[in-house]
């Protein structure tokens, strides 16, 4: 049984079904993929690295690059590449397609079905109590896969701690807005006044429509909506009108310490499998779901469901992804310590050609320039340079 029909759950359901397991995919919502709680951006490099393909229908806009804006708004640098750097998706369509794939692979699906309890026998998860159609029913499972997102309770009810602490979470809110002029670039605004311990963003969704949002660190006051309202006071949003509101929690700390137990696997955002720098989790969720689904099918086929057998998922996932995520978490800690003057100086002294050099791996001249402008940035630069991939993924 898979709980949660987001990217992680649907991918797990699909691969488990393809592997011959009989699969039930349940979700509390009346419509898979709705409501959307996401900036909807994905980077091409993740798609490539994880071998994920996306349909034309789920793509709202192709992104040429990213524009980083300094806290004082006086300067910006643009990172762009000749090929498409990323996509802004329509998550409603995207998630629906993944669920359809799971159903086509043979998974049964259930809407408006809430998991209100987990059943156990001798410490082993044996099923879940589902609430639907006005009644509670116990349904047995050989393996329960928890993919119920940042608000995950299923894994916690089963005994794996997926609680998101305030410190290790970001909280985001965004409007999808019309009448926003965009240049086909995602825009990232740094600075304590815009988004403490996070960033504010404009993600174009095609023509004059964009997701405009902020994500802030969990210990910050006041709440995220305050910062979004302030961001929207900028002149460029004068004509902007909201057409949708999206909010959510992003667990940006390290992935959960435990991903499997007897009869249980945790995948996706509920397992905190999220990029700590930009808070993106779509690709990581699909990747983890794919691995978990395959392992689940294999284990069911062999009649196994103990933690030891299921740990093949945890081992495969950790060895493939965790090191990189932890490196990026360290980088996040360094970036969090930068103040507005640091960002103003760094972004202010760079031009687009410098960014081109960075992308080509030619760090030295750029680092020299930044250090001349702001010697205090030595530590941060060191961390940037030791964390490979950074130039491409920022």
């Amino acid at each position, binding site marked *: 049984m898979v709980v949660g029909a987001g990217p992680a759950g649907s991918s797990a359901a699909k691969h488990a079904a393809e592997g011959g397991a009989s699969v039930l995919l349940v979700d509390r919502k009346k419509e898979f993929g709705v409501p959307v709680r996401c900036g909807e951006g994905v980077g091409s490099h993740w798609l490539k690295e994880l071998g994920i393909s996306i349909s034309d229908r789920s793509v709202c806009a192709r992104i040429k690059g990213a524009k980083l804006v300094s806290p004082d708004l006086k300067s910006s640098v643009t990172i762009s590449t000749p090929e498409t750097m990323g996509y802004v998706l329509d998550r409603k369509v995207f998630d629906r397609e993944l669920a359809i794939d799971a159903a086509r692979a043979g998974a049964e699906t259930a809407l408006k079905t809430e998991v209100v309890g987990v059943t156990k026998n001798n410490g082993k998860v044996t099923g879940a109590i589902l609430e639907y159609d006005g009644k509670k029913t116990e349904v047995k499972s050989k393996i329960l896969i928890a993919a119920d997102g940042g608000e995950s309770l299923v894994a916690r009810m089963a005994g794996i701690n997926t*609680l998101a602490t305030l410190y290790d979470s970001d909280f985001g809110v965004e409007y999808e807005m019309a009448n926003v002029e965009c240049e086909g670039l995602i825009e990232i605004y740094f600075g304590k006044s815009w988004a403490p311990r996070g960033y504010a963003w404009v993600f174009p969704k095609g023509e004059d429509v964009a997701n405009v949002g902020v994500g802030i660190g969990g*210990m910050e006051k006041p709440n995220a909506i305050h910062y979004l309202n302030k961001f929207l006071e900028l002149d460029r949003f004068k004509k902007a009108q909201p057409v949708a509101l999206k*909010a959510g929690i992003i667990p940006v700390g390290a992935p959960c310490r435990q991903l499997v137990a007897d009869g249980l696997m945790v995948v996706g955002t509920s397992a905190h499998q999220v990029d700590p720098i930009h808070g993106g989790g779509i690709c990581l969720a699909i990747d983890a779901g794919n691995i978990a689904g395959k392992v689940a099918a294999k284990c069911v086929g062999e009649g196994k469901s103990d933690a030891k057998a299921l740990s093949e998922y945890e081992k495969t996932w950790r060895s493939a992804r965790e090191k990189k995520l932890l490196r990026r978490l360290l980088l996040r800690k360094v970036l969090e310590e930068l103040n507005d003057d640091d960002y103003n100086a760094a972004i202010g002294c760079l031009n687009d050609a410098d960014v081109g050099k960075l992308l080509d791996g030619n760090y030295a001249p750029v680092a020299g320039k930044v250090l001349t402008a702001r010697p205090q940035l030595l530590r941060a630069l060191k961390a940037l340079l030791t964390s490979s991939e950074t130039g491409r993924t920022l």
Partner: protein
Amino acid sequence: MIEIDRTKCAYCGACVGVCPAMALRLRDIYVEVYNDKCTSCGACVRACPMNAIELKK
């Protein structure tokens, strides 16, 4: 006691994710509150992106 202002709530589940007491649950179109479990720690208040939650005595 947790009190959620439904005119502000976006049903995003952030409060559910940070509640150490599992006193909140995200349902299809609303957030269910179990005040008997609440320890008044205030994590949900801090977390709520919409500033929709208050703790009341």
